[in-house]
């Protein structure tokens, strides 16, 4: 590992761990930090497929939203605790990804991206229409995240912002460590190889479709974790968490931050969330500014903002 990458790892870890303490000093609040971490996890999960397998999905919000709705419904209807509820959401989203992935994996490139949108919108309309269960357009209310009871100690993620932030950060750390492990394993290298040259991989004896399917499922699994955290963060979920424009935002975060660098999507998510927070308090047209920044980044940093740091063989 090169020392520059190590330094960046350390910088990211220190920043994330100390986030809530200095964020107040620059006039912000803990919930914003939590949102950065949640969106960062979503963008990094998408990037497992986009950056490390070379497959573009415009439908990841579907699995993000399924994770979120699964979590919310498990709390509201089954009386689950926060963590079991998240596990339930992850299960629902991953099963959906397993089935849908198998249906769409034969499509490639822009066709793949199109069918991911189509399937994503199916879930959006279900959530939008099925009022009795999902709350429809108004979203699912009447539930809230529950403190986590470890027996000897109760972690009050419901009442304490900072406690919830560190809970989210722990989940984030587990997911990110698992993704890093996978990326630097033979499995991860086979995915990068598909990104680099599908034909060569086929002629090394690998079935491309089943491998892309696997990468899609892994990526959707992690994005569903982010979706569960997102529902817990807001104590609320509505159909916009499933909609394709959110999928597009994940792509923007990943590309803006740098899809060939491990931390790039997190960086992109931080900029996205911060801009959204700051600009939307001044104007409704905050998306305009994000679009402008996105265009400038793509024009002047085609490898993304962190991409300049990781020139070379990013495997």
């Amino acid at each position, binding site marked *: 590992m090169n020392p520059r990458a190590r330094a960046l790892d350390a910088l990211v870890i220190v920043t994330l761990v100390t986030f809530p303490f200095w964020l107040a000093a620059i006039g912000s609040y803990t919930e914003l930090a939590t949102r950065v971490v949640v969106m960062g996890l979503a963008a990094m999960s998408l990037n497992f497929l986009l950056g490390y397998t070379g497959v573009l999905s415009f439908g990841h919000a579907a699995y993000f939203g399924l994770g979120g709705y699964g979590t919310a419904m498990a709390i509201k209807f089954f009386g689950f605790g926060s963590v079991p509820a998240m596990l339930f959401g992850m299960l629902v989203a991953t099963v959906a990804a397993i089935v849908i992935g198998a249906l769409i994996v034969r499509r490639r490139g822009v066709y793949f991206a199109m069918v991911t949108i189509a399937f994503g919108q199916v879930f959006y309309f279900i959530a939008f229409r099925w009022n009795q269960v999902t709350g429809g357009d108004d979203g699912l209310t009447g539930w809230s995240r529950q403190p986590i009871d470890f027996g000897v100690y109760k972690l009050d993620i419901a009442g304490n912002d900072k406690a919830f932030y560190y809970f989210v950060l722990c989940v984030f750390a587990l997911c990110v460590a698992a993704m890093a*492990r*996978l990326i630097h*394993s*033979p*499995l*991860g*290298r*086979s995915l*990068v*190889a598909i990104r*680099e*040259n599908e*034909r*060569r*991989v*086929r*002629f*090394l*004896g*690998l*079935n491309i479709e089943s491998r892309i399917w696997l990468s899609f499922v892994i990526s959707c699994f992690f994005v569903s974790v982010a979706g569960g955290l997102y529902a817990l963060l807001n104590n609320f979920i509505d159909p916009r968490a499933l909609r394709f424009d959110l999928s597009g935002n994940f792509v923007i975060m990943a590309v803006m931050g740098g899809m060939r660098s491990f931390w790039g999507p997190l960086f992109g998510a931080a900029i996205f969330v911060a801009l959204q927070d700051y600009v939307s308090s001044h104007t409704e047209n905050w998306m305009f500014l994000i679009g402008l920044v996105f265009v400038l980044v793509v024009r002047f940093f085609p490898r993304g903002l962190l991409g300049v740091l990781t020139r*070379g*063989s*990013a*495997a």
Partner: protein
Amino acid sequence: MTLLRVEKVTKRFGSLTAIENVSLTIEPGELRAIIGPNGAGKTTFFNLISGLFPPSEGRVRLDDQDVTALSPEERVRRGMARTFQITEIFPELSVIENLRVAVEMAEGHSLSAWLSPASKRAVNNRLDQLLTTGNLTGKTDVRVGALSHGDQRAAEIMMALALKPRLLLLDEPTAGMGDQETYNVAQLVRRLHRREGLTIMLIEHDMRVVFNLADRIMVLGEGRVLAEGTPQEIAANEDVQRAYLGEVAK
């Protein structure tokens, strides 16, 4: 036992017949060259053998088993490996990473999230062997896209070799190379054939390479077999001279 038996394959693309009724057998240990003018259907013939697309008619047998309906990856698992006219490698990755991917896939590790120290050692030993065979030892960390033509080709051949194939198909291994590089690649092919006993089939334009290396030569012209035989027989064949060698000799 005959390693490869191609039986009367024909390939039509719409109204164009690229390959017509071509048969061929390859015995273990053989080094066979396929020559012919541009557009003779040589690469199409390779694609039929390696499974990139199916023939319109005819069969392909490997070890007397019909593989006509099998995908390229299934044929690879049965011992066929190939390189392409335009090198197919992972340009953004380093030489060692290119080979590592190939070795891990060949050793069946490509689904693992973790390798035991013993497997890791085995992979690294195999990598050292391949680097030495391909004369790439000094370039392990170089991005493969930044290598010379000849070294990229050597890397591609080593990736195919990582699969421990029983039949290696090389599509114009010296295409676009200068004299020195052509010589180096030809030497590499000769080593693989002589020292490792590999069965090799190659398409080649450079006649010095062909007549130096091949045990037998098959000449294709407009999708049909014009002649087949030892280099001496082919050099003496008047049909071949007219159709092909003549135009080169001019």
